[in-house]
């Protein structure tokens, strides 16, 4: 009998591709201490504002070290309900329509596990966050990718959605603004998408983690459009807007029946999110808005800086309406996105993520995160310029 433990790994897990970011991560890790400027991160460069950290320390001092309700602390759910109503114009009952989770990632997993039968088809726009496709595979769903294009600023269009739709589609996953493209939809585009969802009876999972980092225009949640709240699970969290990635705290809001189904999975797996993180999140919602605005202003200036520089350098780059990612096209250099990323890292010690990591529609692009200081961004852009001038075919 073979001794290979591989035989115990579940088939659908064994066949999951490794994250496209992983190889690159290893390579960058090896170059530690070599003055590498990383535009490859996926989190704010700010530390969580002190008043939020201090609230967590205070909670620990007061002995808050126990489980909370499966749904999350009621005070936090109330604050979330108020916040979502004020900022997104959708009203959710704190008692049974809000679920506090361990980051939006858990909320996505819960929603898919609670709603997706084996073989159900789940639509998502691509390029997209690296975990969407695998999350669908893990619940034995069938992933249906909808392409978005640079010419539309990587906004999802109802036309592309209709073209990709096949019978059996049950869920549409949205991430607006989008990681890695920064693309988002205008109200008109979103309205058409909402119409399509009602026509095809699609349930929407809307991951709006970057919504506070919208620079041009106002962010609109699809849940706020007429008739959509009843078919939308609104997913949000604290990682990006409040610079709280390591706290792992997010939430889901939606119809009580769906939240209850997600809560079932949550109570048997995670039980509840960390009470300390929940206390910090409460403080963030009550008193953190000024910090959000300050950080957003800086991201805005950084975006304008990198987008302008990329275009000057000859890397065609649409201006992302939200998020802290620029997604320039590198085709003009004659290099593939992989050659570009690896070459840039080796020659100029700047790390950007090859776009293919975010799905095949990311080919020919790289993701550059501008959540880093002005000084670093200026130097990084100068190095990229030198790389393009000396290496372009």
């Amino acid at each position, binding site marked *: 009998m073979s001794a290979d433990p591989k035989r115990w790994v579940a088939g659908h897990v064994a066949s999951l591709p490794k994250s496209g970011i992983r190889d690159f991560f290893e390579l960058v890790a090896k170059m530690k201490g070599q003055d*590498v400027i990383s535009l490859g*991160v*996926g989190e704010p460069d700010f530390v969580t504002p002190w008043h939020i950290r201090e609230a967590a320390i205070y909670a620990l001092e007061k002995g808050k070290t126990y489980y909370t309700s499966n749904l999350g602390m009621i005070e936090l759910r109330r604050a979330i309900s108020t916040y979502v109503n004020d900022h997104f114009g959708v009203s959710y009952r704190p008692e049974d329509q809000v679920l506090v989770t361990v980051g939006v990632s858990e909320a996505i997993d819960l929603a898919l596990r609670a709603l997706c039968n084996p073989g159900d088809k789940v639509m998502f726009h691509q390029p997209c966050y690296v975990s969407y496709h695998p999350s669908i595979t893990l619940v034995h769903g069938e992933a249906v990718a909808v392409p978005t294009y640079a010419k539309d600023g990587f906004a999802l269009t109802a036309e592309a959605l209709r073209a990709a739709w096949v019978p059996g589609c049950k869920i549409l996953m949205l991430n607006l603004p989008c990681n890695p493209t920064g693309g988002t939809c205008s109200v008109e585009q979103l309205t058409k998408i909402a119409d399509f969802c009602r026509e095809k009876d699609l349930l929407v999972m809307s991951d709006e983690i970057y919504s506070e980092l919208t620079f041009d225009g106002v962010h609109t949640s699809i849940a706020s459009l007429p008739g959509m709240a009843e078919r939308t699970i609104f997913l949000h969290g604290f990682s990006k807007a409040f610079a709280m990635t390591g706290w792992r705290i997010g939430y889901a809001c939606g119809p009580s029946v769906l939240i209850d189904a997600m809560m079932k999975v949550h109570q048997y797996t995670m039980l509840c999110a960390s009470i300390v993180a929940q206390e910090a999140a409460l403080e963030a919602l009550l008193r953190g808005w000024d910090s959000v605005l300050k950080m957003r202003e800086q991201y805005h200036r950084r975006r*304008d800086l990198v987008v302008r520089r990329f275009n000057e350098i000859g890397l065609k780059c649409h201006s992302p309406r939200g998020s802290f990612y620029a997604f320039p096209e590198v085709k003009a250099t004659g290099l593939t996105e992989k050659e570009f990323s690896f070459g840039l890292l080796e020659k100029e010690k700047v790390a950007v993520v090859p776009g293919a990591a975010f799905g095949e529609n990311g080919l020919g692009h790289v993701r550059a995160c501008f959540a880093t200081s002005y000084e670093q961004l200026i130097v990084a852009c100068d190095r990229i310029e030198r790389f393009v001038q000396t290496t372009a075919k």
Partner: protein
Amino acid sequence: MNPVLKLLLEGGSLTTAQMAQVVGLSEAEVQQHLEQLKKDKIFLGWRPVLDLSREAAAGVAVRAVIEVKMTPERGGGFNRLAERLARFDEVEACYLMSGAYDLLVFVDGSSLQKVAGFVSEKLSTLEGVLSTSTHFMLRSYKEGGFLIEQAEATTSRLNVAP
């Protein structure tokens, strides 16, 4: 708002060339904005933020905060006296306050004696000054927005993340 002022408000220490990159102007235009801010008396000047407890030779060993009570003058209020007081080199900052006293004066000196001498010989003898109350600073925990001896832990963020 002046784009350069917005950047200055962030409290960074960019060179004018770097500022030009960030706000998307030429360096000359940034200079013009700075000149305008100076003309408008919004931007008063550059100054480094230093922790002088680490450098005795710098000559600022002692800092004091002095509460000053004074008699306002008809027509001019506290202004004439406050402006006169502010001109002394020893005075680092000077504010008119609401509450139990009138002026709050920050004074730097190379020794306790020097600061005490300034208060007793110059400050309290000014006509109109009724009383002073001097508090010597013992230790600084934050200076001009910078934390002292409790910097954030060096970052161990992942270099590449999804």
